[in-house]
C-alpha cells in the first residue's frame, strides 16, 4: 500500500514484556538452543511474507528493505554480523587492516561459484566496488569514499587502498551493505537497466527461480552451494500480502511460516506470540538499530530558539510513546545514537525528562506566552506514512503539545510528498520519521546532522536544517579517525552538541520483530538476520504435524 510504504503497513510492537514472558519469548529462547543439538533435516518449502513487494532484486543498487530481505538468500555477503555486530566470515574468510589503517585486505573463500556456474573472484568485488558501490549505491558512495584504488593480486585477495583510515567500511560489508554483483553479467551494460536486476544471479544458498509481480517470488535450493550440505530447505516462496490483517491470518493459520520487519499490527503480535505454532522475536535487527525522531525545522521563527525546542521536548512523554503508541515495541530514546550501539551511546547527562510545567515555563521565558485562547503558537506536524504507528505518534505529539498551549495540526501525505516537503521544499515545522543507525553511527546517524545536503531534496539526510560548523567538523573527523578510542570520543562530543542544540528530538528506539513458525529451526539469529539468508534454516517435522494445518501438506 503505497501509502503504507517501506516496511509495510504494520507496525510493530505491542508486546508488553509481561505478555511476552508467558509463551513465545520463553519458547524462543529455548527454541534455538535445542535445535542446535538436533540434527537439521533436509527438505521442505518455506513460505515467507515479503511486504511491500520489492522494486528490484539487487540490493547493490537499491537499498530498500524488501530488496534486502529477498536478496539476502540469493547473494552472500562478504561478511555476516553476529548478534554483537562483529563481522564473521562469509564470502570473505578473513581480513586484516594495516597498522596505519590505510589498507584493508580481504581473503575470499575459494571455490565459490555464481549461480550460472562461473567462478566468483576478486575481480567481481573490485568491479562492483568501483562501478556500483562508488557510483550508484545510495549509501556506499559515502561509506567507500575513502577508497582510492582496489588491487587484486590473485583471484581470492582484494586489497582496498584508502586515502584515510575508514573504520565504517567493515561494518557495511554484509549482503545488504555491499552486495557483490557478477562482473561477467554486468560489465559494459547499463547497470540500472540490466535485466539481471530482476533475475538476480548470486552466490548464495538459494537460486532465483520466478517472480510473479504482485503475487510471489520463488527461490530454489542451490545444489552447488559452497557450504556442503546446506541449505537444508528445498524452496523459498515469498508471498506478497498487502493487508496486515491478512498477513496475521496467514501466519496464524500456518500458510506462511516466516515474516520479518514487524509484519502484523503491534497489537496482533501479542496475540500471535501466545499461539503454540508461532514465535515472535525482536532479534536480528541489531545491525539496523532503528530510531524514531522528530526533526524541528530550525529555520522557522518559533523553532529557531533552542529554548523552544527544549521546551517542546519536555512536553513529550517518550514513555507513553513507547508503551501506548508503539505498544511496548520501542524503548524511550535519549540520544540520536541508539543504546544498542553501546560503545558510542552517551548523553553526557543532557536529558529532557517529561515535565510539562517546565516546558511551559521555558516557553514563557522564550517569549511565547499563552494568548487569550490559551494558545502560544501553532505549528504543523508531518509524519512519514509507513503505517498507523507513525500516524499515532503524530497524533500523540499533537495532543501532548496542546497541553502546553501549542496548537498543532497533523498533516498526512504519501512518501514522495513527505520527502519532498521535508528534504526539498523544507515546508514543515515538525517532521516525524525514522532512520536506521546501523552498527556504526557514521553510516546512519551522521547524515541527520551534516549541513551539506540541506534543502537539496535528498531523502533521509539533515531534515532540521541545522547548520553548525563544529558539528560538520566533528562528522568529518569521525570519518578519517583510525583510533577507535578517539573516534568514540568524537561521537560523544557530537552527541553533546546536538543534544544541547536539539535540532532533532530522539523519540524512541524501535524494536522490529519477526514472526516465525515454532517448527522452523535455526541457530541464534545474526545481528543482520533480517537481511540475512535461510542457509541454516530447517523444519522440524515432528512438530510440524501439530503446528501446521493440513493446508500446507505440500511441504
Amino acid at each position, binding site marked *: 500500500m503505497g501509502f503504507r510504504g517501506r516496511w509495510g*503497513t504494520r507496525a510493530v510492537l505491542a508486546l508488553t514484556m509481561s505478555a511476552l514472558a508467558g509463551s513465545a519469548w520463553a519458547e524462543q529462547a529455548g527454541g534455538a538452543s535445542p535445535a542446535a543439538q538436533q540434527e537439521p533435516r533436509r527438505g521442505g518449502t518455506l513460505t515467507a511474507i515479503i511486504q511491500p513487494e520489492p522494486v528490484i532484486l539487487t540490493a547493490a543498487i537499491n537499498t530498500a528493505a524488501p530488496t534486502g530481505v529477498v536478496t539476502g538468500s540469493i547473494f552472500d555477503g562478504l561478511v555476516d554480523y553476529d548478534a554483537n555486530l562483529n563481522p564473521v566470515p562469509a564470502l570473505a574468510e578473513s581480513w586484516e587492516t594495516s597498522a596505519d589503517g590505510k589498507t584493508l585486505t580481504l581473503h575470499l573463500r575459494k571455490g565459490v561459484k555464481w549461480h550460472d556456474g562461473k567462478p566468483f573472484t576478486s575481480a567481481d568485488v573490485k568491479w562492483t566496488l568501483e562501478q556500483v558501490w562508488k557510483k550508484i549505491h545510495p549509501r556506499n558512495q559515502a561509506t567507500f569514499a575513502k577508497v582510492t584504488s582496489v588491487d587484486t593480486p590473485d583471484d581470492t585477495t582484494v586489497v582496498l587502498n584508502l586515502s584515510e583510515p575508514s573504520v565504517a567500511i567493515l561494518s557495511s560489508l554484509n549482503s545488504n551493505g555491499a552486495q557483490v554483483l557478477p562482473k561477467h553479467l554486468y560489465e559494459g551494460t547499463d547497470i540500472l537497466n540490466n535485466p539481471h536486476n530482476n533475475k538476480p544471479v548470486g552466490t548464495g544458498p538459494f537460486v532465483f527461480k520466478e517472480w510473479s509481480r504482485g503475487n510471489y517470488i520463488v527461490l530454489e535450493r542451490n545444489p552447488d552451494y559452497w557450504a556442503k550440505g546446506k541449505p537444508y530447505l528445498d524452496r523459498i516462496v515469498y508471498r506478497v500480502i498487502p493487508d496486515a*490483517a491478512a498477513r496475521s491470518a496467514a501466519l496464524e493459520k500456518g500458510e506462511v511460516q516466516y515474516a520479518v520487519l514487524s509484519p502484523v499490527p503491534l497489537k496482533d503480535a501479542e496475540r500471535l506470540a501466545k499461539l503454540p505454532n508461532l514465535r515472535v522475536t525482536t532479534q536480528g535487527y541489531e545491525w539496523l538499530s532503528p530510531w524514531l525522531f522528530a526533526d524541528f525545522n530550525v529555520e522557522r521563527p518559533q523553532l529557531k530558539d533552542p529554548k523552544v525546542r527544549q521546551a517542546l521536548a519536555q512536553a513529550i512523554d517518550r514513555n507513553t510513546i513507547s508503551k501506548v*503508541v508503539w505498544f511496548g515495541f520501542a524503548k524511550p530514546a535519549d540520544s540520536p545514537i541508539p543504546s544498542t550501539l553501546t560503545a558510542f551511546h552517551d548523553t553526557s547527562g543532557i536529558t529532557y525528562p517529561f515535565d510539562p510545567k517546565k516546558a511551559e515555563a521555558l516557553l514563557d521565558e522564550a517569549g511565547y506566552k499563552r494568548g487569550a485562547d490559551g494558545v502560544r503558537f501553532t505549528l504543523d506536524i508531518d509524519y512519514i506514512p509507513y503505517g498507523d504507528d507513525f500516524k*499515532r505518534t503524530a497524533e500523540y505529539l499533537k495532543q501532548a503539545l496542546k497541553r502546553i498551549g501549542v496548537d498543532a495540526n497533523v498533516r498526512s*501525505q504519501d512518501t514522495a510528498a513527505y520527502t519532498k516537503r521535508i528534504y526539498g521544499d523544507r515546508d514543515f515545522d515538525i517532521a516525524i520519521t525514522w532512520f536506521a543507525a546501523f552498527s556504526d553511527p557514521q553510516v546512519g546517524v551522521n547524515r541527520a546532522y551534516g549541513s551539506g545536503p540541506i534543502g537539496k531534496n535528498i531523502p533521509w539526510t539533515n531534515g532540521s536544517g541545522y547548520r553548525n560548523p563544529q558539528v560538520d567538523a566533528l562528522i568529518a573527523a569521525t570519518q578519517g579517525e583510525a583510533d577507535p578510542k578517539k573516534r568514540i570520543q568524537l561521537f560523544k562530543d557530537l552527541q553533546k552538541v546536538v543534544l544541547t542544540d536539539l535540532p532533532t528530538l530522539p523519540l524512541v528506539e524501535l524494536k522490529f520483530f519477526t514472526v516465525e513458525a515454532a517448527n522452523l529451526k535455526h541457530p541464534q539469529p545474526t545481528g543482520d538476520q533480517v537481511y540475512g539468508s535461510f542457509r541454516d534454516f530447517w523444519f522440524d517435522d515432528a512438530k510440524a504435524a501439530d503446528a501446521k494445518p493440513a493446508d500446507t501438506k505440500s511441504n
Partner: protein
Amino acid sequence: MTVFEISAPAAPAPRARDGLLLRLLRQPSAAVGLTLLVLIIAMAASANLVFPDDPLDMVTQPFLWPGEDAAYPLGTDMLGRDIASGIFHGARVSLLIGAVATLVSLVIGVGTGALSGYYGGRLDAVLMRVTELFQTIPPFLFALAIVAILQPSIPTITVAIGITAWPSLARLVRAEVLKLRHGELVQASIALGASDLRIIVLHILPNTLAPVIVSASILVASAILTESSLAFLGLGDPNVVSWGGMVGAGREVLRTDWYVATIPGLAIVTAVLALNLLGDGLNDALNPKEAAR
C-alpha cells in the same frame, strides 16, 4: 463508488393531497430511515453539548472495552480516546463530508445535465463525451488519486468524492431535461421570450427535483462509505474524527479489540441504511404511481 443508478420516476410527480412528510411516514421503511437519520443528525448537533471536550484527547487508559467503565460506555481506542465521543463528533464530520460531496456532485451533475439537455447539439455532444470520460475512469481510483495528490484532509477528501460521483447524475438530469425541453410549459415560455437561464431555473430544474432528491440521498450514503474506504487505505484526515477514520484506525486491532473498528462501522452501516431507506421512500412518495404497485 456510486452504485445505485437511480431510475427516474416515469412522470413528474403528480401533486398529492398530503404533504411529503406525511406520505413518507406512511411507509414503514421510509419512516425507519427518517427516524434513524434524525437521530444521527441529533447526535451531530448535540456533540459539543454531550461531549464538550476534544474527541481526540487521550482521556484514559487505552483499550477499555465497552461497558468496562461507565464513564466510557463505548470504551476507548488504542490511544485511550473516548469512542462514544468520537461517534458523536464523527457524525458531524461524516455527515458533512456526505452532504458537501453530494453538493459538489449536484452542482456539476445538474449543471452539466441541464446545459446538455437544454441546448443539445454540439454542446451536448461535448459534455456527454466528458461525462463518458469520467465514467470510464474507475471513480474510486480517481478519488484515490485526487486525495493522494492533494494530500488527505477533509476538504480534499470531500471534493474528490464529489468530483468523481457526478456523471450518473448528469445523465439522469439530462434525460429529464430532454423530456421537459419539448413540453408545453417550456415551449410556451420560449414563445413568451423568457431567457434561457430563467427557463432552466424556473421551469425545468424544479421539475427534475424528485429524481435528483432521491439520487442525492443515496449519494450522501455512498460518500460516507467512500470516505471509510479511503480511510481503510490510509487516506484519512488525522486532525478530525470521522467514522471512516475511526474504522481505519481500528482496523489494525480488528483481531484483538474488534469493537474499536466495529462501533464506528455500525454507525456507518446505520447511516447508509437510513439514507437508502429514505431514498426509497422519497422515490415512492414523489412518485405515487410506482408506489401503488
